[in-house]
């Protein structure tokens, strides 16, 4: 797997993403988040008061074949889905599941605390929990009566 990255992958991907964004912006006007062709794995992003959650469905991917890296505001998810080969005297009726590698970089919509990131895989669903730093957490402001 070391073959994927020789130089700084984040820089390259980030540059590429920026170029793509520019291309789409000129093509579809001022749309900020254009609908691009999806990259595996598809992601759901949610938040609550303290955390940002990034989830992906990765059935059959064992945690040791999965790598999550955070650099600045870029989250890189890469790994491999392996389907063990069956013995030779096996006849397939259906083959819909695919094996292969994947890598996806996600630009996080908000700043996160790089020291406070957790990734957990349960039942084939990866959940990355990112803590929001104090300064981006919503804060209620008391309105004083003058």
């Amino acid at each position, binding site marked *: 797997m070391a073959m994927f990255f020789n130089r700084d992958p984040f820089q390259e991907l980030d540059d590429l993403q920026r170029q793509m964004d520019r291309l789409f912006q000129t093509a579809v006007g001022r749309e900020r988040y254009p609908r691009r062709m999806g990259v595996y794995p598809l992601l759901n992003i949610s938040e609550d008061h303290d955390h940002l959650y990034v989830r992906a469905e990765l059935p059959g991917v064992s945690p040791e074949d999965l790598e999550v890296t955070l650099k600045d505001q870029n989250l890189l998810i890469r790994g491999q889905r392996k389907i063990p080969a069956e013995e030779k005297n096996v006849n397939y009726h259906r083959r819909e599941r*695919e094996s*292969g590698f994947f890598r996806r970089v996600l630009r996080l919509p908000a700043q996160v605390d790089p020291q406070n990131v957790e990734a957990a895989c349960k*039942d*084939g669903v990866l959940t990355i929990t990112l803590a929001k730093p104090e300064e981006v957490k919503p804060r209620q402001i008391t309105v004083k009566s003058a």
Partner: protein
Amino acid sequence: MTEQELKPKVKEEAPVKGERVRPGRVFIPAVDIFETPETLVLVADMPGVSGDNVTLDLKDNLLIIFGQVNPSPEKETLLAQEYAIGDFYREFQMGELIDTGKIEASVRNGVLTLTLPKAEKAKPRRIEVKSG
């Protein structure tokens, strides 16, 4: 096996059968089915389904697999959704006779593996051709 890059797939929704008690969507899991001389093996991708949430039913050659997925916590606000979340359901018409007493099922990393041993009379038998 040559290594290829995985492509995202949009989950296919299962055809509606009757009214469901629980709200939510239902999808068709991707499966591999293969056969050895003794068994039929079914492997289904059901992310989010734990072993306790799988229901299997085999009646009159109709195999039904159902996996229940717990929805994501309600207190979270969704910022971006690329994939839909829902249960998994799929039916198969079994051509082979299955020894229902010996079915084995396991779930690991969101993948269901079902081993269905063939009934004695469904196993391939070599027929001796006698020379007369």
